[in-house]
């Protein structure tokens, strides 16, 4: 397995990354029906269900950590194969350039659809109502500059730079030593390292959308990126971790129940601007353990080449870049319809995925664009 992980394309990681990105589309679609987010999410619908909260926050704790873990693994893999220059050029072409091009377009599309919805929708969310109030002021403030869902590209660039800086200064050796020890050390130590970061922000943790980097996001997602890079250097770590998988599954079930209970008791808001230490610790352990379990499951179930998964893997980057403006536009349009929320969720989710995949097929799959976002 060692040689397989070090030198060959690791299919299950590509497939896992694709699934994590597609889960992101469904996650954003589901937030419209989350009771917890009803006051904060622009597309929040009149209808919502606690079942949504019961499911989405679990995926929220694993989706992006898993993505950054795979990104760290890929960065170390590429560094080994193509050197620092190759990694830098690849990051410029596939991350920096798409970010620079997509950011203004996404910002414009989201602002335009939100302002349109604020003016037109008869049953607006709390956020839309606020936007409507602000836009009707004589001197309306401009929309805040955020990275929206593209923050992950910004942090990928940041982690590439940090990866280089840590390697140059020889600081990576502490992590390399930890990963060579018993798997339990990382599984118990990493949550304790990231918990303070999660304790500084509300629970469930927000998206770090600010154009300025956030300490907590660097510590939290950076830890997963680093774990991915270290696992590349010590691929037998996963084999050692696999022995602990049954314990992790039991632990995750118990911790997730506790997390949902605490979330109900301490909902995000003015009373709880940041997570309590208990919730932060629960989030930290769940993120690390669920992410490792996903990785182990992927290794067992997704390594075989599959045409469907490979197509999804190729298209997932484009789909993720494009999905939010389309999803918001569809959900704004669906807001006034008298339909059950599961149907609205299915329509918005399926419609977004269909439009994104269609555009991938027409604009990217067979054009030079695939070198950048394919």
């Amino acid at each position: 397995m060692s040689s397989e992980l070090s030198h060959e394309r690791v299919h299950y990681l590509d497939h896992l990354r694709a699934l994590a990105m597609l889960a992101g589309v469904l996650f954003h679609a589901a937030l419209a029906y989350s009771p917890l987010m009803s006051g904060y999410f622009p597309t929040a619908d009149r209808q919502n269900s606690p079942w949504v909260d019961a499911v989405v926050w679990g995926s929220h704790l694993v989706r992006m950590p898993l993505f950054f873990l795979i990104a760290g693994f890929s960065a170390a893999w590429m560094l080994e194969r193509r050197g620092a220059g190759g990694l830098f050029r690849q990051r410029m072409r596939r991350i920096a350039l798409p970010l620079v091009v997509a950011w203004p377009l996404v910002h414009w599309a989201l602002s335009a659809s939100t302002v349109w919805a604020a003016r037109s929708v008869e049953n607006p969310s709390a956020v839309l109502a606020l936007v409507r109030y602000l836009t009707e002021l004589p001197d309306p403030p401009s929309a805040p500059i955020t990275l929206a869902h593209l923050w992950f590209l910004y942090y990928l660039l940041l982690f590439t730079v940090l990866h280089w800086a840590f390697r140059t200064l020889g600081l990576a050796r502490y992590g390399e030593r930890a990963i060579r020890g018993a798997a339990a050390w990382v599984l118990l130590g990493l949550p304790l390292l990231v918990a303070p970061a999660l304790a500084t922000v509300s629970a469930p943790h927000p998206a770090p959308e600010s154009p300025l980097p956030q300490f907590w996001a660097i510590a939290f997602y950076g830890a997963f990126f680093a774990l991915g890079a270290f696992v590349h250097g010590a691929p037998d770590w996963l084999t050692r971790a696999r022995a602990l998988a049954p314990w992790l599954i039991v632990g995750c079930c118990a911790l997730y129940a506790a997390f949902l209970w605490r979330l109900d008791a301490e909902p995000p808001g003015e009373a709880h601007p940041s997570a309590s230490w208990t919730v932060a610790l629960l989030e930290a352990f769940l993120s690390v353990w669920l992410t490792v379990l996903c990785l182990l499951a992927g290794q067992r179930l997704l390594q075989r080449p599959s045409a469907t998964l490979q197509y999804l893997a190729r298209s997932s980057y484009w789909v993720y870049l494009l999905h939010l403006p389309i999803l918001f536009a569809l959900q704004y349009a669906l807001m006034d319809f008298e339909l059950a929320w599961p149907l609205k969720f299915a329509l918005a989710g399926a419609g977004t995925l269909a439009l994104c995949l269609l555009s991938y097929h027409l604009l990217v799959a067979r054009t030079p664009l695939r070198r950048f976002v394919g």
Partner: protein
Amino acid sequence: MKLNLPLVRLLVVKDWQLFQKQLATYVLAGIVALCFLGLAESWAFYVGSLMLLIVMVAAACFSISTSLVVERKEQTLSFVMSLPVSPLDFTISKLAGNLITFAVPFVILLGGTLATVLLTPLPDGLFVYALLIFAYILFAFAISLSVAMSVESEGWATFAMIGSMVLINPYIMALAQIPDIDQRTRVDAVVWTLPAVGILISLVVLSIAVLGATTWFHARKPAFN
């Protein structure tokens, strides 16, 4: 004499490799400084901007020091001169390497500061003032780089670096004495006054002229000495 671009590139990369441990430290410090700005607290804003300023000045000075002063002091310069490079290649590589090392944090800091001024409740009049401060830093860097490229004495090169950067204090005090500049910093609008534009253009033109003259002087030499 024809410029040998692949070799210039190699020399720039070589200087960066020699400087990369320091550069990595500055990059880490720069990211920490940006994170402080990202906390959106007034104390963090001052800590972050001060840190960024220190990082930028330190990176510029140490880049000049490593690539020019230390190379001369540790006698590695004669090794570089023995390679198939002309004085033109050598001069351009030193200029390009140092300019890029300086420009990356400079542009991030300048862009970040201007965006902060325009997008936060800070008075927009600070936009012009911030540009005047940055123009001075550019000028001080141009002087430091030119002196380090032109003199053989480590003492003079260090004096030029420290001296030019320290003079920012009297410069800021002098700006405070000009009503057309000082009073506009409290106004929530970007206003271009004659003294501000005059100083800005003078500093930028002088910076370019100093670097241009130094490059021209060294690049036209037939041999290193």
